């Protein structure tokens, strides 16, 4: 079950007590030619893995910032095929995770898509409109591929669903921190700490918090509550404006190690 490289790499970081930081970028925003440079920048800034978003015409889980980045990428002619082709041209030391809605995968053909992911060195896959009950659509083709299918858990997921999802989770558990779409938030629900604690209890593999986390203070806050964080809109916006120090600060906060305590387990 846990044969995936991504699961192993992130699990080692978790066990070493290291906080995990995963930035999201929109492929093709700024042109497909910017893809490798941005991955390298994020790696150098201290990311543990990079989530590469594929633009889609109807991104129903995304807020304004990522919607607009997707529109810019689509206008520049970006497609799932082109992104995977481009990724295959150069390898990176940092694990790459592709985030795409389901329909572009279906249009490409599932076996072909998975083959191209392998060729591109993609280690993980996030599909926001593929819930646990429907995952066999991909998993029947994924066995032995080495690619991790990363599940999302929401604040609305019942304890039964959390247990069911955690049992078969690969890579990490993407803990959605708000009910809603991606993008900056000023505040989070009060029960979030308990929710993340329960998730961590239910899951062997790392639990990363994402959605709405957009500044270094929030990154630090969520690192205390989870095994790491995912930052999307703030990174996308920083690439757009060119203010790259923002990303370095987020990653800096993201790389802070927790104090090491002796444990008795």
């Amino acid at each position: 079950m846990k044969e995936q490289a991504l699961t192993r790499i992130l699990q080692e970081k978790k066990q070493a007590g290291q906080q995990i930081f995963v930035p999201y970028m929109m492929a093709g925003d700024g042109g497909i030619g910017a893809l490798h440079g941005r991955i390298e920048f994020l790696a150098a800034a201290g990311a543990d893995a990079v989530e590469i978003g594929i633009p889609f015409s109807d991104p129903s889980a995304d807020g304004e910032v990522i919607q607009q980045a997707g529109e810019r990428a689509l206008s520049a002619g970006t497609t799932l095929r082109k992104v995977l082709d481009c990724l295959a041209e150069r390898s990176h030391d940092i694990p790459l995770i592709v985030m795409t809605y389901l329909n572009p995968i279906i249009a490409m053909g599932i076996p072909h898509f998975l083959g191209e992911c392998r060729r591109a060195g993609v280690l993980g896959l996030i599909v926001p409109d593929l819930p646990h009950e429907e995952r066999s659509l991909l998993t029947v083709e994924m066995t032995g591929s080495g690619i991790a299918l990363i599940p999302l858990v929401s604040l609305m997921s019942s304890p039964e669903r959390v247990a069911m999802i955690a049992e078969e989770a690969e890579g990490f558990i993407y803990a959605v921190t708000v009910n809603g779409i991606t993008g900056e938030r000023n505040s989070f629900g009060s029960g979030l700490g308990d929710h993340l604690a329960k998730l961590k209890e239910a899951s062997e593999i790392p639990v990363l918090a994402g959605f709405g986390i957009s500044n270094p203070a929030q990154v630090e806050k969520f690192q205390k509550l989870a095994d790491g964080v995912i930052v999307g809109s703030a990174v996308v916006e920083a690439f757009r404006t060119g203010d790259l120090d923002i990303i370095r600060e987020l990653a800096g906060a993201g790389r802070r190690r927790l104090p090491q305590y002796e444990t008795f387990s």
Partner: protein
Amino acid sequence: MIQAAEGKGRYGRFGGQYVPETLMGALTELEEAHERAMKDGTFREELDGYLKDFVGRENPLYFAERLTAVAGGAKIYLKREDLNHTGAHKINNALGQALLAKRMGKRKIVAETGAGQHGVATATACALLGLECVVFMGKEDIRRQELNVFRMQLLGARVEEVDKGAGTLKDAVNEAMRYWVANVGDTHYILGSALGPHPFPKIVRDFQQVIGQETKRQIIEKEGRLPDAVVACIGGGSNAIGMFHPFVDDSGVALFGVEAAGSGLASGQHASAMAEAKEGVLHGAYMYVLQDDDGMIQEAHSISAGLDYPAAGPEHCHLHETGRVTYTAATDAEALEGLKLLSRTEGIIPALESAHAVHFACRLAAELTPEEIVVVCLSGRGDKDMHTVRNVSGGGIV
């Protein structure tokens, strides 16, 4: 071709629940509440009471004698959904779902609308039952259906303009779904067509099948037998599935679904997902979806805002694949012709959506004998379309 028949809510290979995890709990809750309600005599009684005294059901099955004479063949009957309160079949489902929401303890409602008919129906049901209502509507549709926006506001609903994409139905559904994800704890989403993740296509069918059930009873009263053909227009497909469903097992009844061919199927400017038969996932269901080779959803094009949707509901896709229903399409020009013809021969101005079905039914009737019977689902009335029809007619009567 994809086989994914394991999950819930499948129609052959189509349907499913392709939604964010945040919605999965709400869909299960809705499915259970709906099943309980449909088995509960009190719920049925309450709904039937409103359908009779508030909506005005049952509505007539009307023999269109002069239209029949002009078409020159089979007898044409019209199922008069246009006579419902709010002017279309949409109220059947909006009312059913609003009652369901109330039973679930959800006092807030979100809905999308294209032509505005579902938005008006939902706003009406919410006013009736004292529920809070927000309706998402595309910018282009707001322009085309300005008066329906005013109508919804008058009924106490908040109308949110959607300026993304082409500003039509697909974009309104995206925004309504985003809103639902953010407010799922206390809000029910009243989806207006036979679309979306399970259990929506089934719920919409259950609340719309009153159309076909009444039609069956009425045609037997009038003709002593079932019709030879039944015709309905299809955007997402709610009036069609409501009309067809009670006839699906009657093999002697031919069923025809009429999509919008816009400027013509060859032009690429149309809303006929069946014609292109490209499979994909949109708004939570596996269906035929208008899309490019990279899986980007394409804009649909139709003169009627209500058919302007780039997919056909999952059960229709299945009925297409099994061959039980024949799907065809009528162009904008043909729909206008149908609208004018019905207006002049029968004194009934149909909605542009329904006019697609009228046009095809006349063509079909012409090929049949006077002993044969064609029933058309006249899903709505044309008041809302007068602005559009006047504009394309150059401001005058053609």
